[in-house]
C-alpha cells in the first residue's frame, strides 16, 4: 500500500458514498458515452489484467489498496469465450492468441483427477465443481474454434470429474465451494451439456440435464431460486441469480426444452418488475425478493442484462430489452474513463466501491460480463432497428 493508492481509496469511497446517496437524482444521460467508448475501455482493462500475469490467465482483480491479484483459473476459463468473441468483433488476432495462451495455461494447472482449484492461484489446492465447470466452458470454446484435440481431452477429464460430483438426484454434492449446495452450479451443467454435444457423449449430456432438472426444482413460484447463496447466512445475490439464469438459458438453447425457458421467464419477469418499480437491483435479495442490502453488485447488473438480451433475442419481448438497456447504462455510469488511472475501464465489484460484494476491487469477471453484455447489445440493437425499419417499409407497401 502506498500514498497514491490510499488517496485513490479515499477519493473513490467519498465519490461513491455521495453518488450512492444521491443515486435517484444523478443526471444519467449526460454521464454515459457510446457503447464503443465503454467497450474499448473495458477491453483495455481486461487485456491489462491478462498482461499483468504474463498471459497465464487473467489477474483476479485490481485491489484499490493492494494492486493486481494473482490469476484466477475459474474466471480466466470463462474469459476465453469473451476473448474469442472480441476476436470476431474487432478481427484482431491478439485476442485469439490471448485466449489460446490462457487455455494452455489452464491445461497446465489441471489437477490429476480432472478438476480445477477453487479461488485464485496459491490459495486453495483442492478442486471445486463450479471453478472446474467454468474452465470447461473455456476449453469447450477453444475446441469448438480450433478443433485441437488437447482442449477436448482436458475438457473430457474435467467433465468426468464433474459427473463424479453428482448424486442420483442430479445435485452436485461433492467438491463444493464452502461445503454448501449451490444452485448456481447449473452453469457447470451447461458446460457438461456443451461438452457432450462437442464430444458426442450422451453421458455428459444426461448428467448436465439431470442437474438442470434439479435446479428447476429449486425455483419458487415467484421465480426465486433456493440454495443460491455463496456463504452460510447470506441470501441470493443478483450475481448468483444471473449465473443460474444463464445456465438454464444455455441449457434451453442447447436442448430446446421449453420448460427451461418458461422457468427462466418467471425470474426475468420478476427482475423487469423489480427494476421497473425500484429503479435499482440491490445486491442481495431474500425469498420474497425483498432487498437485504443497499449496495449494488455491478457484475450482477451486467449478467442480468446479458441474460435479458438473450431472452429478448428468443422471445422478441421488448420489456426484456428495455431493462437490459437500463442495466447497461447503470454499469456504464460506474465505469472509470480516466485514462491515467490504473483501473481505467474496469468495473467495480460493488457500487459503492466499499459494498459487501468484492469490496474495493475491480474483478476481472465484472469487466468480462460487461463486455459480453455490450457486444450482444450492439448486435441486438442493430437487428432490432433493422426489423422496425422493415416493418415500416412493409406497412407502406
Amino acid at each position, binding site marked *: 500500500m502506498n500514498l497514491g493508492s490510499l488517496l485513490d481509496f479515499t477519493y473513490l469511497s467519498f465519490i461513491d458514498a455521495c453518488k450512492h446517496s444521491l443515486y435517484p437524482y444523478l443526471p444519467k*444521460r449526460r454521464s454515459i458515452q457510446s457503447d464503443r467508448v465503454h467497450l474499448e475501455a473495458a477491453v483495455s482493462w481486461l487485456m491489462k489484467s491478462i498482461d499483468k500475469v504474463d498471459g497465464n490467465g487473467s489477474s483476479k482483480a485490481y485491489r484499490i489498496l493492494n494492486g493486481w491479484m494473482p490469476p484466477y483459473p475459474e474466471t480466466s476459463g470463462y474469459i476465453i469465450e469473451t476473448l474469442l468473441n472480441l476476436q470476431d468483433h474487432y478481427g484482431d488476432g491478439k485476442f485469439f492468441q490471448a485466449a489460446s495462451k490462457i487455455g494452455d495455461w489452464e491445461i497446465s494447472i489441471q489437477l490429476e483427477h480432472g478438476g480445477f482449484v477453487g479461488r485464485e492461484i496459491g490459495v486453495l489446492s483442492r478442486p471445486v465443481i463450479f471453478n472446474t465447470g467454468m474452465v470447461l466452458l473455456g476449453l469447450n470454446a477453444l475446441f469448438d474454434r480450433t478443433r485441437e484435440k488437447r482442449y477436448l481431452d482436458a475438457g473430457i477429464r474435467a467433465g468426468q470429474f464433474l459427473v463424479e460430483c453428482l448424486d442420483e438426484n442430479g445435485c452436485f454434492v461433492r467438491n463444493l465451494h464452502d461445503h454448501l449446495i449451490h444452485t448456481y452450479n447449473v452453469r457447470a451443467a451447461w458446460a457438461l451439456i456443451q461438452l457432450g454435444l462437442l464430444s458426442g457423449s450422451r453421458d455428459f449430456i444426461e448428467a448436465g440435464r439431470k442437474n438442470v432438472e434439479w435446479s428447476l426444482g429449486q425455483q419458487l413460484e415467484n421465480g426465486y431460486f433456493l440454495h443460491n447463496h455463496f456463504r452460510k447466512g447470506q441470501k441470493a445475490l443478483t450475481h448468483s441469480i444471473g449465473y443460474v439464469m444463464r445456465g438454464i438459458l444455455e441449457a434451453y438453447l442447447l436442448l430446446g426444452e421449453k420448460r427451461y425457458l418458461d422457468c427462466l421467464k418467471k425470474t426475468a419477469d420478476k427482475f423487469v418488475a423489480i427494476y*421497473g418499480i425500484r429503479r435499482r437491483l440491490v445486491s442481495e435479495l431474500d425469498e420474497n425478493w425483498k432487498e437485504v442490502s443497499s449496495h449494488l453488485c455491478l457484475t450482477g447488473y451486467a449478467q442480468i442484462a446479458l441474460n435479458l438480451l438473450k431472452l429478448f433475442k428468443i422471445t422478441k419481448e*421488448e420489456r426484456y430489452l*428495455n431493462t437490459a438497456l437500463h442495466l447497461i447504462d447503470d454499469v456504464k455510469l460506474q465505469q472509470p474513463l480516466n485514462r491515467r488511472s490504473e483501473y481505467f475501464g474496469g468495473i467495480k465489484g460493488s457500487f459503492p466501491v466499499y459494498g459487501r460484494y468484492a469490496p474495493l476491487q475491480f474483478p476481472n469477471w465484472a469487466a468480462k460480463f460487461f463486455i459480453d453484455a455490450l457486444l450482444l447489445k450492439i448486435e441486438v440493437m442493430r437487428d432490432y432497428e433493422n426489423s422496425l425499419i422493415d416493418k415500416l417499409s412493409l406497412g407502406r407497401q
Partner: protein
Amino acid sequence: MQELAKHHEVFAVFGKKGIWDHLDTYLRRRNEIDVHRRHTLAPLLPASHNAHAFPGPVNTLRFLRRLGIPCYKVSHLNGAASVDLLKRLKPDYGIAAVDHMLLPAVIDCFPTLLNAHYGNLPQVKGRDATEWSILLHDHLNVCLHEIVERMDAGRIYLKENIAVDKGDDFEILRAKCQDAAKSLYLRFFERPEECKNLYESNEDGKNYYLMNWELKALAQKKVERR
C-alpha cells in the same frame, strides 16, 4: 375542471406540499423527460392548437382557485392525512392525475376513480405508455379507465384515437393526449352510468416501465418515418 365545475361540485387535492416535494420530483424526473420542454411546449405548437388545447404554462393551483374550486394540499396522496381528507369529503367520482401508484386505502375512498391513460389499453399498461404504444403498435389511443389496485387494469370506459403526424415528438403527442383526455372526461360525465355499463374488459396486456432513452429514440424514428 372548468367545464366540470359548471355542472358539478368539484374540488382538487394536491399531493405535494412544500418546495422539497417539488424539488425531489423535478430532480428525479429530469432523467426521464425534458422537463423544460414539457412546460414550455405551447409556443412550439401551431397557433390553432394554442388557442384551446395548449394554454401554455399556468400555475394550476392559482388557476383553480381563481375559478373558485376548493383546493387542498397534502404532503403525499397516499398518506393518512390524504385518506382522512377524502373520507371527509366523500366524493362520488375521482379523477387521478398522478405519476405514481395509489394505495388501496386511497382508491377505496372513491366509488369510481377515473384515469386517462395515454396509451393503448389493454395491451400497454404502466409508465411511458405513449412511447411504448408507438414502439409496439402503429396507433395511439387515450383510454379512460377505472383505477383499481393493479396498475392500469380497471375497466375501460372510453377510448379516443390520436392522430400521430410526421414531425410529432413525444411531448407533442402527450399534449395531444391531454387534449383528448379532456374531451373523454367531459363525455363520461355527460352520461356516467351509461359509460360504466358499456365498459371494455382490461384483462390482458403487460406492465411496461420507464422506457430507456435508446428505445425512445427508436420510437421517435418510427414516428419520423411514417
